[in-house]
């Protein structure tokens, strides 16, 4: 399991490749990857920047718990999870969830499960800066979109 927080932009594809150099790929027939980017719009408004607050210590532990629970449910998987914190600009990557498995169903289902649980449980909070300079907290994630 690998869970990482980045205070600066990170390249999700480089993380996937770096991890693959350490994995027995001949036994891992499937890799499912989700990469989430910051949009420049939310609820019909232009968003210029984002600040991602987190709970240092708990955020890392909670991501590790979510991944560990997925590894219990799908024992064959290997996971890489990364998330930005702090100031983020549009088009930058916010989150990476990569899951390797022998077969496609476990990889795909575990990737989806980890992402949804991360969005609903892990302590991160988004604060948006709009085009007119005002700021607002995001009250909730778009459900299942």
């Amino acid at each position, binding site marked *: 399991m690998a869970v990482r927080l980045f205070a600066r932009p990170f390249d999700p594809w480089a993380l996937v490749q770096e991890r693959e150099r350490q994995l027995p790929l001949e036994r891992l027939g499937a890799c499912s990857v989700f990469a*989430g980017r910051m949009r420049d719009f939310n609820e019909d408004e232009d968003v210029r920047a984002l600040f*991602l*607050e*987190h*709970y240092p*210590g*708990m955020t890392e*532990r*909670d991501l590790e718990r979510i991944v560990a629970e997925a590894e219990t449910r799908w024992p064959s998987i290997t996971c890489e999870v990364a*998330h930005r914190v702090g100031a983020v600009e549009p088009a930058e990557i*916010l*989150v990476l969830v990569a899951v390797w498995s022998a077969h496609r169903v476990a990889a795909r289902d575990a990737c989806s499960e980890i*992402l949804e649980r*991360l*969005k*609903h*449980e*892990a*302590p*991160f*909070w*988004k*604060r948006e800066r709009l085009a007119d300079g005002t700021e607002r*907290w*995001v*009250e*909730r*994630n778009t459900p299942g979109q």
Partner: protein
Amino acid sequence: MCRGRQVTITVLYFARLREDVGRERDEVASTGEVQTVGDVWRGLHGEPPARLMAAVNQAHARLDTPVADGDEVAFFPPVTGG
């Protein structure tokens, strides 16, 4: 009895809740009247708001989760990561 020993619960606030409360932490004396996460909130702020989330020692908790001397209790609004 804990006479002569100062025992407290550290209370942390995050995101919009920190702004609403107006500070990032409180220290609460650990007494027999403070048994749960909900007691910690009520003792400081009255009735808990809807959709209040909480953690004890950096693990998710509910309002009826017990608290003990030295615990770190955190309160925060619904999370919006990913």
